[in-house]
């Protein structure tokens, strides 16, 4: 017998780690939504590009630099998306921008598939190999620990940025009162670039951290595996709340890991995706403001 502790602790440990990575993407979605009221469906590809950036840079550079390259790849993708697609469409309906971000993902994925025509899946390298410690007979790997630490560090950094710096205040102001903010001499375009760059960097970071949990990654995994979970996490947290997105990501990760562990996948395949749909519909119908959101 593995014991009750094992049965409960294993999904929590696994869900905490993968959910923390999803939470990073969800924060990127929330930042973009707060600043420009746009649902960014290209966010999944920021994740994949981050993973690819690290994988390719690892051939040439020391691994530490490759990680930075991965994060930078995501950030550059975010900046290009803002500059080339979102800004020309900024006066259009939000649904148009949504479709445009979907189209971006659709333009990027085939390029990744071409790159991966010989090997379907790419091996992903953890930052630190091996297990850190054991709790209720569940091994906790260094990678899982690092992901949760990354979430804490990013959360603290964002809290400092929004509460203590002028630029953070300007970002918050531009999301609440764009016109007044502009009259105060703050350039909204730059704030928008900053937010998209941050969202891209968060996606890239998730792309560096998440694949080693599954040992490998494949073309388009950000869109097919991460994107809907990140959106659901953001909605669960309230869509406009950065802490809410963190909490939503972790909660959703645990729900998904629990569904995966406790449902027989032969009789009932795809339980995690059903869990995501259930959480999404329940939150949207019962409590559209989410856990920590102030508006619908």
């Amino acid at each position, binding site marked *: 017998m593995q014991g009750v502790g094992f049965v409960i602790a294993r999904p929590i440990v696994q869900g905490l780690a993968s959910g923390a990575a999803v939470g990073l993407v969800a924060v990127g979605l929330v930042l973009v939504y707060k600043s420009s009221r746009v*649902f960014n469906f290209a966010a999944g590809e920021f994740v994949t590009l981050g993973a690819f950036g690290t994988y390719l840079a690892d051939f040439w550079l020391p691994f530490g630099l490759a990680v930075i390259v991965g994060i930078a790849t995501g950030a550059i993708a975010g900046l290009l998306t803002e500059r080339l697609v979102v800004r020309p469409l900024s006066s259009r309906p939000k649904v148009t921008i949504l479709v445009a971000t*979907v*189209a971006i993902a659709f333009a990027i994925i*085939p390029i990744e*598939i071409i790159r991966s025509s010989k090997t379907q899946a790419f091996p992903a390298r953890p930052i630190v190999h091996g297990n850190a410690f054991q709790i209720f007979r569940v091994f906790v790997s260094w990678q899982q620990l690092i992901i949760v630490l990354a979430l804490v560090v990013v959360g603290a950094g964002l809290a400092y940025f929004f509460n203590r710096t002028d630029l953070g205040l300007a970002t918050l102001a531009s999301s609440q009162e764009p016109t007044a903010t502009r009259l105060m001499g703050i350039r909204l375009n730059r704030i928008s670039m900053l937010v998209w760059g941050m969202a891209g960097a968060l996606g890239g970071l998730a792309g560096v951290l998440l694949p080693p949990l599954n040992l490998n990654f494949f073309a388009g995994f950000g869109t097919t595996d991460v994107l809907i979970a990140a959106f659901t996490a953001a909605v669960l947290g309230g869509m406009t709340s950065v802490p809410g997105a963190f909490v939503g990501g972790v909660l959703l990760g645990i729900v998904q890991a629990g569904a995966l562990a406790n449902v027989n996948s032969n009789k009932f395949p795809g339980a995690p995706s059903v869990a995501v749909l259930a959480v999404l519909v329940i939150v949207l119908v019962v409590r559209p403001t989410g856990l920590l959101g102030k508006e619908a």
Partner: protein
Amino acid sequence: MATALEPEAASPEVHVVPTKARAGFRPTPAGWAARSLAVALPGLIVVWYVHHYAPVRADFLAGGVIIAIGALSLNVLVGYTGQISLGHQAFIGIGAFTSAYFIGESGQSFYVGMIAAIVVGAVQAVVLGLIALRVRGLYFALVTLAWGFVGEQSIFQLKSFTGGGAGAHATRPGGFTTDRMFLVFCAIVLTLILLVDWRLVATKAGRALQAIRENPQVAANYGINVKGYTLFSFAVAGVYAGLAGALFASRRDTVSATDLSFYLVALPYLLVTVVGGLRRRGGIVVFAMLFVLGGEYLPDLAKSLHIKFIQENAGNIIQSLSGVLAVLTLIFQPDGVGTITAPIGRWLKGERFSMHVSAGGGAEGVSVRP
């Protein structure tokens, strides 16, 4: 300029009063002859080409027709109802697997499978429509995205229903078993759907949907049954998708979950709808065919030019380019590339040739009688 996705988009088209030039103009017999020739000549070339190079080409053309039907289903949701769907692999796939289940497992005829696909497709669409009554706009897009992945990762993997990874078998309808005859069958279905769609937007239901798309509250005040018509439009989209699914399953004899992924179905169909032009049936059908033919002929072209890279990756290159094309369309030609061909369409209908986009009063879009 109004965007196709924008609710207000249709309003300039509604208030079009026939101008003097338009009302008084009648083409001369020579003009009619030129117009007939303009229709007949490309048609003959297509028929000759298919006749000569079938059956491989016919199979691909059938694939294009199926994409067109799926995109028309999306057009009902995105174009007429104003609800975006990112989970059309579930819409198409449920139809495909239902049809395959009745044909392959129960040994029924194709037509039984097709009717079952229509019914089940409509039912799942109406269930989503019930959610759409509560959740609108961007958030509903998320629900459809999640629904698509439930289909892909859960429903399509059920061994008893879809045969798991091995896929399910479905035969073609009797008398239409060759590739060429199956293309004819697909074309018949497409023609029927185009007729139904045309009558749908030209009648009371179309006007009701347009009013709901622009403003549900105002529509309700005018006595339009908002809930009823929203669910009705979802049912229509489900019927189209069910038909597309039944044809999808029969085209290749087997259908498996990997054929019906987000990437291979939901994304291309949405982009075909957007690039072809929302509420422009002709544009959608034409772009669906171009999308398929591009993937089919690019390898030949690359081979003759000795570009090995393009030859090997033609399908992916076409997909990537259509993503870029979709972004460019949204930025520079918001009503879809159909607006470029709209003057030709109006000319063929017997009007004077004019490049004005709005002059025709929605030659293919939502046409409302004054």
